[in-house]
């Protein structure tokens, strides 16, 4: 747990993102019809989802740890990771809608990817509702940990698996080539990967900040 109090990875994340913000606009990108310059959104829209996946994964790990040990701390980590992840989820959805408007023609075209992303979003909203509806601390922690462990694989299936089995406008789905194969060249990878790593660390940073605040609140409540 010492890791979250260290500074080096926060500086690293900021530097990586600063690099991607500059290089993302200046480096060349493949010339593709329909996409045009919006292909640069790959550097910003996709990392939102990567960051979300990173914090949601951490949250599941700590939910399992909580169920194993019963330590209140782990529950707090799991909650704050889900909260941060939901925030990045919203950013990913909105940036996706923005991008869709100018490439697919509509903000929301009821595409399988969009619809299942919306359903998966409701899953995590339900997590927040579930938590707030239980007053007893241990019961709340235990039930929400179990719910979180079940919600995560369902979210992964909804976002990553189901849209791939049908026709979708989103790249990487339904016989639609993913960015990785045709559209993205190695120039783009030089920006895309640092962007993913950077945003994951930023999400982690925000989650740890929220966790530390919550830990203080928790300790304050304990004394009373």
């Amino acid at each position, binding site marked *: 747990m010492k890791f979250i109090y260290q*500074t080096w990875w926060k500086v690293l994340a900021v530097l990586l993102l600063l690099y991607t*913000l500059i290089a993302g606009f*200046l480096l060349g990108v493949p*010339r593709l019809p329909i996409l045009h*310059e919006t292909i640069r959104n790959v550097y910003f829209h996709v990392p939102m989802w990567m960051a979300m996946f990173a914090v949601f994964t951490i949250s599941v790990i700590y939910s399992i740890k909580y169920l194993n040990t019963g330590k209140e701390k782990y529950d707090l980590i799991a909650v704050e990771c889900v909260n941060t992840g939901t925030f990045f989820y919203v950013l990913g959805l909105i940036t996706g809608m923005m991008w869709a408007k100018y490439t697919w023609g509509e903000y929301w075209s009821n595409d399988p990817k969009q619809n299942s992303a919306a359903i998966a979003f409701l899953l995590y909203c339900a997590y927040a509702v579930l938590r707030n509806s239980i007053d007893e601390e241990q019961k709340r922690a235990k039930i929400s940990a179990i719910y979180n462990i079940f919600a995560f694989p369902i979210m992964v299936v909804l976002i990553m698996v189901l849209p791939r089995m049908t026709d979708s406008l989103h790249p990487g789905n339904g016989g639609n080539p993913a960015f990785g194969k045709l559209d993205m060249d190695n120039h783009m990878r030089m920006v895309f990967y640092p962007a993913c790593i950077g945003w994951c660390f930023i999400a982690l940073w925000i989650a740890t*900040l929220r966790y530390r605040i919550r830990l203080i609140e928790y300790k304050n409540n304990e004394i009373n």
Partner: protein
Amino acid sequence: MRKIFVLAFLLLGYITAFARQNGGVEMADAMRGSGKIYVVIAVIAIIFIGLAIYLFSIDRRLKKIEKEK
């Protein structure tokens, strides 16, 4: 020989078609060329640096509070 010529001609046609296809896509070449995109990058960089400093300051304040405990 004639076959090779035909093949070469067809290949040439393919290359030009490919070049035309690439050239036909509208990109912000002029915008980046004229240098104005640097303004946008500067604005984004300022916003991001500001946010980063803000996060660091929250971090520092939290550290102080944690030490008091």
